[in-house]
Structure formats: C-alpha cells, structure tokens
C-alpha cells in the first residue's frame, strides 16, 4: 500500500519531474537511475524534464486497481518529455478527445488514491492551453 513516507520521499521526482542524464553518453532517464542503463556510467546528474510534451500512447482503464475505484474510467498516457517519458494521468480532457501526438502540459492535482484517509497531490498532464498557444 502507498504510505505517507513514500509520497514524501518521491515528491521531488514526481512533482518537479527530476530525471537523470548521463554525463558520459548523454542518455536521459526517467524514472531516475543510479547509473546509466545505456553505458553503465555512474556519472549521472539530476535534470529537470520539460513540463510540456506529447502523448506517445494512451489507455482508458475501466477496471481499476485497488485504491483507484473512485476514478473510473481513468485516462493514463505515456508522455514524451524531451528525451524522456513519464507515465501519467491525463486530466481536463474527455477520453474521446485524446490522440497520439496530443500536446500536453504538467499540472499538480489531487491523486484519486487516498493514504490513510488523507489526500495527496501528484503530477498529472492536461491539454496545452489553446488560448495561451495563440499568444
């Protein structure tokens, strides 16, 4: 089960989108790794991933896992953020409106999952504001 200490431990990576970049070969990784999966070097540095990207693939869950029963259907996507990706919930969008290549941006929202009766916040992605794009 998800615990308060796990959310606290992960907040930087999940909300500030901290990944790792290899200083030897340049490979970027999210989730972050202690060493580069591509060349094995331990000389990796923390980087902040871009907060805007595009939908690489998506799914709509009709059968929830335990803890997410309150949010059905749940739209989840793999979003390309520069050289890395994140698996994330899409919000502020109908399932029928999502498409591969859709531009999305990060936002901080309540998780559908409760921890010991408390809500917690997590990064989600929403369609890029069309009005702002016009500026």
């Amino acid at each position, binding site marked *: 089960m*998800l615990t308060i200490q*796990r959310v606290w431990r*992960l907040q930087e*990576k*999940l909300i500030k989108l901290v990944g790792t970049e290899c200083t030897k070969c340049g490979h970027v*990784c*999210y*989730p972050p*790794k202690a060493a580069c*999966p591509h060349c094995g070097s331990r000389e990796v540095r923390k980087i902040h991933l871009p907060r805007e990207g595009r939908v*690489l*693939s*998506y*799914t*709509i*869950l*009709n*059968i*929830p*896992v*335990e*803890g*997410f*029963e309150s*949010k059905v259907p*749940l739209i*989840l*996507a*793999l979003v390309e953020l520069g050289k*890395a*990706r*994140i*698996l*994330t*919930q899409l919000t502020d969008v109908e*399932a029928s409106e999502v498409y*591969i290549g859709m531009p999305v941006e990060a936002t901080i929202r309540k*998780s*559908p*999952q409760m921890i010991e009766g408390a809500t917690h916040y*997590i990064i989600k992605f929403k369609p890029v504001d069309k009005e702002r794009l016009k500026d």
Partner: protein
Amino acid sequence: MNKVYIVGVGMTKVGKFYDRSIRELAAEAIFKALDEAGNERPEAIIVGNMLSSLAEQENLASLIADYAGLRGISGFKVEGACGSGGVAFLAAYSLIASGIFKKVLVIGVEKLSERPTPATSRGLAWAADADYELVHGISFAGLNALVMRYYMNKYGVSREEMAAWPVLMHDNALQNPYAQLKKKITIEDVLKSPVIADPVRLYDASPLSDGAAAVLLASEELARKLSDTPIHVAGVGNALDSTDLTSRYELDRLLASKLSAEKAFQMAGVTTEDIDVAEIHDAYGVTAAISLEELGFAPRGKGAKLVYEGRFRVGDKPVVNPSGGLKARGHPVGATGIYQIVEVAMQLRGDFPGIKAGGEVGLTQNLGGVGANATTVILKR
C-alpha cells in the same frame, strides 16, 4: 558443466479453485512429476511463485516440501513476477549443471483467486514500477494497452488482425484437458468483448488463474535410470530489461526476450529455424506478436499479421502454443513458466494430451512484468 535432463513432469488443471490451497495444488503437481520417475526423492526443491502474499503465505519452499513429504531436503523460492517459473527453472538447472545436486524438483505454483479482482490487479501491478507507475493507478492490462496502441499505430495493424491470436489460442485449448478456457470464440466475439483498458478487451487478455506445474530434473548419469524418455535441457538463457515500461528504449520491442533467446540458442547450438514447437508468453495478444518477432519467427511489425494469415498452427514450423497459451490454457503467473516446460517436454516425448505438434527441438519463453525479465529454454528429444 554437467548435462541436465527432465525425467518427470506433472501439472494440475488450470482454473479458479476456491476449494484448494497453494500447498494442495503444489502437492498434486509434485506427486505426478515424482511418480513419473518412480517416486524418486529429490535432493532439493526450487519454488517459482509471485503472489503468495495475497494468501498471507511466504516461506513457500519449506511449506510445500513439508506438505509433500519432503521435509529435510534443500530448497528456496525464486521470484521474477510472471516470469518466476522461468527463473526458478534456471536456478534448478544451475544446481545440477554445477554438480551441487543430481536430482532437483522445480515447482511453479500460483493462486490468484484468493482476493477480489481489484486487489489481485494491484498485486499483479507490483510487477511494474511501484514508485513511478503504479502510483498513477496503472494496471497490468493498462501497461499492455499502452504497448498495443503504440504497436498497432506504428505498424498499421488492424483490430481484426490483433484478434486472430486469442481465436487461435481458444481453438488450441479446446483439446487440452488442463486448459482453463475451453470455449471456441470468433474474431467478432473478441471485438464485442468488454473493454478492460482501451484498446485491450477482455478476450485480448489472459485470465486470472490458479495452478501448479512441476518438473524433476536429473543429471546425465541418473537420467536414463529414472526415465525411458528423458528430455535434454539443451539451453537456458535469461535477461533483464527495465522494470518500468516508461524508460524502455523502444515501446514495440522486448529486449529481454531477444537477449534471453540469443543466450539459449547459443548454449544449445541451435537457431530460430531449428525450433519445431514453442510455448511463448502471450499474457496479451500484443505480447505474443512482439515475442514472435524477437524470437525470429516473424519480421518486425508482422507478428500479429502472420497469425491473422494462418501461421503457427499444426503442420507449420514452428507450431506455437499448442496448449492454448496463457490466453486460454490460463496464466497462473508464477507457475506459467513451468507449465510451458512441462507442455513442450510432453510434445517432444509425444504424450501431450492435446494438440500434438511433434518435433525434435522445442522452445519455451517466460516473461516477467512487461518483458522486464525473460527466460528462454531449449529442449531436445
């Protein structure tokens, strides 16, 4: 390295057995396997299992050994998610190849019917990255749906083409007395089945299953004494990819599938073209399609299309999943890798009680997670 042989196999029917516990399922498979070798007592037991914690039971090796009358032998459990059976087999193989033991029993056992479906689904998703993937609510079906949509989009594979796999698996399982889903289905049935995780529908997915399968392995000097039809374990290969799907190099590839097969082929001195019969890890139809490609049975992007065109049935080379596969034989996750080895060993012996593929050289491939670990085994008559 000492040569290793299969001298006994056993399995339970796959299904949902609310009236049977982990130890009872395990004992049935173990007794069948040992009896094939004259009830020979093994020196060690290796257990493959993923989710016995759903039934509040760990320490499986001692639990099962003791229940099956084997108190005092050596043993331990090995875990690699849905690939637990495969890695347990690798451990058991290594114990004989190294000369530490001469008779080792390997058993895969799983019981997924113990808890309500959301709890079991969460447990299965523990095979993904808990901190970065499960935290967003992804299920295992959801992870495979992400791969399936990407694969279909990239290679222009139609929904009908993807549906050919479950239809073939249900056809094959009709003749397998150990199979869980014994029901003929059509492409239309697949397309009308409920959407679990779009685009994955119910009939694209393997079912939740209970079951146990066991193999008794022996050294070369004992093999002929214990069996008239020993099957040679000619190659075993294992490889790891990322646990998370998120950081994979390519979403439509299964790196561990390819690397584990290369290692097993090299050890056995065979190639893709030599394989007569295979049991592969079709947890979802898209897993089968990509595995066929990584094993060299289909060109990139053509796995699902070749199935739709009628390949991999009896009379073809290779025959793939004559048991009905995970899709229809069922997928008792930590036991699946051992079921595959039992089935292919029986195919090579000529006594598999379902579709008979025949042949001299067989392959099994068991995956854990979305291909995060893979074990490929080459068997020879």
